[in-house]
């Protein structure tokens, strides 16, 4: 808030403000570098082998599948819809509605695709089932 009547800018005050900005700048650098150390949001591979699970007696095919998962740090996805101004509005609105929650973007799948599994049921009937949205194809910040 602007304080009225102060003609002369208080030399000490400006010195104090500089220190604050300096501290903020250093914090930003620290945060950025730590963010760099923490990986950016991306797809990671986790191979699931049905054989390793001891299931080859009832799962006929496939032998296993690449079950990806998304992990990593997210910067708010600034794009054609969410530019810096809208970002600030969203942050302010969310803050006004619920001050103690900070809207944090999350690293999650942006594309999924199907996998087919062939397996026996208890009566030795055979089931070939297509599971949509089973395997992550791409990750992104939501």
């Amino acid at each position, binding site marked *: 808030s602007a304080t009225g009547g102060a003609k002369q800018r208080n030399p000490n005050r400006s010195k104090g403000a500089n220190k604050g900005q300096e501290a903020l700048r250093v914090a930003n650098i620290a945060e950025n570098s730590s963010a760099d150390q923490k990986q950016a949001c991306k797809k990671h591979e986790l191979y699931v082998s049905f054989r390793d699970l001891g299931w080859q*007696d009832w799962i006929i095919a496939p032998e296993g599948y690449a079950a990806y998962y998304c992990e990593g740090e997210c910067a708010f996805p600034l794009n054609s819809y969410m530019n810096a101004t809208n970002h600030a509005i969203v942050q302010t609105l969310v803050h006004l509605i619920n001050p103690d929650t900070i809207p944090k973007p999350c690293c999650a799948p942006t594309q999924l695709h199907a996998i087919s599994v062939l397996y026996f049921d208890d009566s030795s009937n055979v089931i070939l*089932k297509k599971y949509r949205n089973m395997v992550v194809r791409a990750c992104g910040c939501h």
Partner: protein
Amino acid sequence: NFTLDNEVHSSFIHRRLKSQERREMQREILSILGLPHRPRPHLHGKHNAAPMFMLDLYNAMSTEGKEDGYSYPYKPIFTTQGPPIATLQDNNFLNDADMVMSFVNLVERDTEFLPVWRHHREFRFDLSRIPEGEAVTTAEFRIYKGFIHERFDNETFRISVYQVLEEHIDRESDLFLLDSRVIWAAEDGWLVFDLTVTSNQWVLNPGHNLGLQLALESTDGVSVNPRLAGLIGRSGPQNKQPFMVAFFKATEVHLRSIR
């Protein structure tokens, strides 16, 4: 290159899972597959015709989208009326299906019914274990006809498949003719009969599922023992056992829970 290579390689290393991790992974995948527990099939069913047919179907679907596309396995044999009456008109049925299920034949009786001599075979399939929310889009009954040597090439048989509507102790069951066609004695291969309507009835009213009857007649109307005409039954080779297969479409969207 070393770090890149190392990074790529490390993402593919799947180390031996610890027992706790293994149990968690099993629970996780069973929940995704929509199964309450891991099935325990009895082993002798593994090499029947149905699992082999389904594996061909799985491989056909896995190659879909390749340049040469895929061909529906176990093409039906020609009948005297010309090209096979493939109940599944084109390969799109595979694309559209969310699930395909084959059913083992639960019973088979070769019955010669007195006083009128009438050979026929009965088949039963249990459709009560179909996962919730799946509707039958296509279904077929498949039976293999082997080559018979001692018959003359130009001899033919009339093969008829009936749905059993009601059974009686003292007389023949009430039957509904599903399909009838004339086949060459010298022909061998899979015979395919459309069961789509019957399967939907059996799914909606499991109590009405009294199975199928198959009968064979010579051209002059005399009942013929199916075995003598080369029709493979329960005692035949495992990879030619009769079975039923149904194609399903999910009636509701299965939303995966966020994990």
